């Protein structure tokens, strides 16, 4: 049911967003988080956990380590403490929930959360001109991070 709606949406938007977002990919304004979960892949291409691990740490991409500590990345010198530690995160959340958290955590937690939406156009005011209408991560980068997070079990 949910999957079907997203699939239709992704087809519909392929035309409108063909420049900014690859076809077959769900555009950020067409993503529908239902009951705190996003069942279907944003791209249809399985995420790569090895890439996801890198994107998670990369300061220019996810920079998830800015706010979260994670034992799996001990080689990284600095881990933040703004958000909760992510050890065992896949025991607490399903893949669909993890996808929803990374896409737009405000849908799960609250409008007040400081965690940015990584595949969302629900952003702050005065966005830097060259970033208007763009998301922090691409759909595939989100899938890669989700694939990585699902490996984080205790």
């Amino acid at each position, binding site marked *: 049911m949910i999957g079907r709606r997203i699939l239709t949406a992704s087809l519909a938007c392929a035309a409108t967003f063909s420049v900014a977002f690859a076809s077959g990919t769900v555009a950020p304004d067409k993503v529908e988080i239902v009951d705190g979960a996003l069942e279907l892949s944003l791209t249809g291409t399985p995420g790569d956990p090895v890439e996801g691990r890198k994107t998670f740490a990369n*300061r220019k991409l996810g*920079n998830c*380590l*800015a*706010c979260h*500590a*994670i*034992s799996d*990345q*001990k080689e*990284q*010198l*600095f*881990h*933040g*403490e*703004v958000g909760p*530690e992510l*050890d065992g995160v896949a025991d607490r959340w399903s893949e669909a929930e993890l996808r929803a958290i990374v896409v737009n955590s405000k849908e799960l937690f609250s409008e007040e959360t*400081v965690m*940015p*939406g990584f595949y969302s156009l*629900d*952003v*702050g*005011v*005065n*966005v*830097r*001109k060259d*970033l208007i209408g*763009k998301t*922090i991560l691409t759909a595939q980068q989100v899938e890669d991070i989700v694939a990585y997070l699902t490996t984080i079990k205790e």
Partner: protein
Amino acid sequence: MKKFGKVGAVLVTLGALSAVALAGGPVDQQLVIDGEIEMITRTEAPDGHPLDEVISGWHYRTGETRALEADTFENPGMLFVEQGEAAWNKIEGTEGKSCASCHGDASESMAGIGAQYPKWDADSGKPINVELQINKCRTENMGAEPLPFDKGGQKELTAYIKHQSLGTPVSIDLDAGDMQSWWKKGEEVYYTRTGQLNLSCASCHEQNNGNYIRADHLSQGNINGFPTYRLKQGALVSVHNRFRGCIRDTRAEFPAAFSDELMALEVYVTWRGSGLSVETPGVRQ
């Protein structure tokens, strides 16, 4: 007299601890400059403040950085304060005057003054900060050009003037003129989420002070140490430059220096640090 606790060592081991949560928080230590000037770096928040206690950014820095500020001889910012002193005495403009021509010895005429800015300026009908007051004196009394933002000795002269208030608690007059509405506008700016990262000043400095954001230990973002010496840049950093940097880091366009938006923010953020000693030039990483 210069005795420093070993608290800083805890922070140095950060890398080794990695995923272990640190809950750093402000370091418990007292700042006494040159073993003489007892600084107020923690104090009860003024009425209506969202936090219970107002804490200087000094408490969030490493032991080495804190030690640099505690000794005026070692404080690298003092070199720029000396340059500010030279600027104070330099004759400029068509009237053949320097700051000293009107104000004499800054250690007397400017004592405690920097702690009261921003102030209401009836002429412009706006709040004015030290930088803009310097420009007002230059254009109206010296027949000189206003200094452009962060240039021509503006940071040095501002630091020199503020340094004359070293130790004096920050206290601004919000009853003067229309200061209340500027305070209110500043509060709005403070809580507005900006940029692609969708963060406000409060996201980092109110909700998360004491926490690490990657390698940075978040403080309350008070401005009692400005212009501040930043070790990373090896230079003085002005208040408006710091504001713009933090806004830019949310991936947002940032307002012009001395714009109404940033002046309002300066009024509001100064108030948030009410009661803290002026530390100029503070030392930060």
